[in-house]
């Protein structure tokens, strides 16, 4: 593999608090030099002036459907989607068939992922055996395995039994694990399709009140506070959840939380003609909820953006609203959608967005070097993503690497394109029709 020189990109590295125009050289899998005026001799030079270089992103919440539903996604298609979206590390949720509730299963996944050489895989293990909510899964053995599982969740479902949830939180303190809560009180959400309120009445669809989430957020915050364990709240969607989270953080509860791009960008008002592409759990909420989520993302109350990437087959998704499954794909649209909707509109600084896609989730998971997060510095493993924030383009879900095409952002005009992803020094994704500009000082990118 030839040595690489990425010349003149704006390097934003939250791990070092770095934001500067620099040249970055990559050699033998690692960042070899960072500085100004580095020599291109003996290196493949990519003129990256006007582009943004960041550590590879970490998506802490994806569904890869492998094993069990390989028609919807496989490890390979999912990790290919990841690197196209700029993610060099992903956490896959354990609601597979069979569920990821034991060491051999998670080890097998991690070894297969390594063989692919795309993104790193950090599986999330089940909290309870078989995701049945009855007895604890062998979390310690999953942690001690080659997969080094640190985060556990029954995502897709909450741990309904409060006593069991409390013991799970207590137990993972032994090895510093984190429990990821899927905050949903199913007795309040059962049968629901969309957010409860004006829109649910107008659409005549069964509703999921904000309360269904907030009741569980409140419970889990109390349990985390009492046990002193680390809790992470998945896919928060309501202003009320943000308020509870804010208060808990102020009290010193060891909690982190994420929001998805679709909850940060879309509201219930975007549901058009009963298209189930807008059917997600938790449901799209009100514009006021979206506003509060954005505020919380900007001020750090929300630690991470995670996509909750959930591929579904067209046969399952193109049908009557009640019968279609919940979920959207997200890895290949996350950065451009957030860049266009939040950064370009002045609601979020680009370094902050990048922080929420790198350092934020790494802290929430307790992921540290050498597993993830060495940043862009000499000697660091070269996991990098190069972004074009200038050129406008159109999201085309049919061209996704993911087998899931259920993307509500299909057809959106955006900026913030991933043009190059480097994993362990190897180019794992290069935008196929992208032309590298040679004109120094020109910020306008040309496309063929």
């Amino acid at each position, binding site marked *: 593999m030839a040595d690489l020189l990425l010349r003149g990109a704006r390097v934003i590295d939250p791990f070092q608090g770095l934001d500067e125009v620099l040249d970055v050289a990559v050699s033998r899998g690692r960042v070899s030099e960072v500085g100004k005026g580095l020599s291109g001799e003996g290196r493949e030079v990519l003129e990256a002036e006007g582009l943004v270089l960041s550590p590879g992103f970490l998506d802490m919440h994806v569904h890869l459907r492998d094993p069990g539903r390989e028609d919807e996604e496989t490890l390979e298609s999912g990790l290919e989607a990841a690197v196209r979206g700029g993610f060099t590390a992903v956490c896959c949720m354990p609601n597979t068939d069979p569920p990821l509730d034991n060491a051999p299963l998670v080890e097998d996944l991690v070894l297969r992922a390594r063989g692919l050489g795309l993104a790193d895989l950090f599986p999330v293990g089940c909290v309870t055996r078989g995701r049945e909510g009855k007895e604890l899964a062998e979390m310690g053995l999953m942690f001690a395995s080659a997969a080094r599982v640190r985060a556990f969740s029954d995502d897709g479902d909450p741990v309904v039994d409060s006593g069991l949830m409390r013991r799970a939180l207590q137990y993972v303190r032994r090895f510093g694990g984190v429990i990821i809560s899927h905050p949903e009180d199913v007795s309040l959400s059962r049968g629901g399709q969309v957010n*409860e*309120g*004006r829109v*649910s*009445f*107008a*659409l*005549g*669809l*069964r509703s999921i*009140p904000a309360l269904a989430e907030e009741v569980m957020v409140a419970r889990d915050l109390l349990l985390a506070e009492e046990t002193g364990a680390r809790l992470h709240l998945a896919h928060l969607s309501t202003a009320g959840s943000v308020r509870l989270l804010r208060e808990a953080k102020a009290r010193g509860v060891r909690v982190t939380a994420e929001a998805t791009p679709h909850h940060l960008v879309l509201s219930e008002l975007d549901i058009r*003609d*009963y298209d189930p592409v807008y059917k997600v759990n938790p449901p799209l909420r009100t514009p006021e909820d979206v506003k509060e989520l954005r505020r919380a993302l900007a001020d750090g109350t929300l630690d991470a953006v995670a996509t909750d990437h959930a591929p579904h087959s067209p*046969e399952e998704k*193109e*049908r*009557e*609203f*009640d*019968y279609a499954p919940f979920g959207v794909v997200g890895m290949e649209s996350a950065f451009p959608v957030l860049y266009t909707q939040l950064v370009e509109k002045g609601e979020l600084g680009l370094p902050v967005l990048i922080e929420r896609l790198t350092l934020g989730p790494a802290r929430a998971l307790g992921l540290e070097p050498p597993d993830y997060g060495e940043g862009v510095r000499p000697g660091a493993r070269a996991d990098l993503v190069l972004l074009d924030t200038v050129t406008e383009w159109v999201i085309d879900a049919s061209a996704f690497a993911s087998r899931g095409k259920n993307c509500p952002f299909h057809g959106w005009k955006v900026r913030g394109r991933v043009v190059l992803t480097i994993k362990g020094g190897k180019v794992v994704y290069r935008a196929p029709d992208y032309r590298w500009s040679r004109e120094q000082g020109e910020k306008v990118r040309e496309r063929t």
Partner: protein
Amino acid sequence: MAGEAAERRHLLDVDDLTREDVERVLETARSFSEVMRRPIKKVPSLRGKTVVNLFYEPSTRTRLSFEVAAKRLSADVLNFTASTSSVEKGESLKDTALTLRAMGVDAVVIRHPVAGTPWLLRRWLDVSVLNAGDGMHAHPTQALLDLFTMRERLGDLEGRTIAYVGDILHSRVARSGFKACLAMGMRVVAVAPPTLLPPVLPEGVEVSYDLDEVIPRCDVLYMLRVQKERLLEGRFPSPQEYSRFYQLNLERLRAARPGVVVMHPGPMNRGMEIASEVADAPHAAITAQVAAGVAVRMAVLFLLLGMGERGD
């Protein structure tokens, strides 16, 4: 709604119609209701047209009403019900739609337990789609036939007051009814226990938990069916308690204005939301609603399918 614009070829909900459209439907329905009094109740308006009744939910009166309406206009009618069709073999709605398209039918009347299904059908079919009830969402021909019935009894509806009483939350009749009544300038009151009301009602709809307080103010009392299922969901404690507070019986009716109109979309739970004596009293317009149903559906089919080819 005669087909100037593509979306006008459908009737998915009441808000597809302008006030003028509604007047036109009601006027046309009135002339068809005269046809129904003739010895030969048939006109040739839709000869050569094919109407499919696509029913995914059991329904006797609405399906029969559409069938009679189409036949009286001389259309060919095909009935497709979920229990006897390929749906049982797992055929998707999309494939059913593509099949109907390939057969070259002119209109599809759809009843489906899931809200919004007619909108999906419209996406996959290039023929007229008529919503005959989708989940809890909409039932536009019911709203139109209700307007027709009220008009017959009360004349001008502007400024009149209607109370919808019962399971508002799960009612497509109420959802479409609210829109239709508000559009005609009526005052609308929703009466139910809080557990059968949505958290937010459309602007202009007043809420009351007290039927006795509302009755004296109303020109129309519209009783909604309360299903046993709601009891199991814990939305009220017992049928006895429900009827104690929300049943329309003779005693309650005494407080009503003379000439008050009692309506019900059917099928009734006699003894639950409505007492038998009230259902059979002269105030009740319940059988008039059924007759209006045929006339209004004839009008809708005629305006959607017949008017575009006036030159024939």
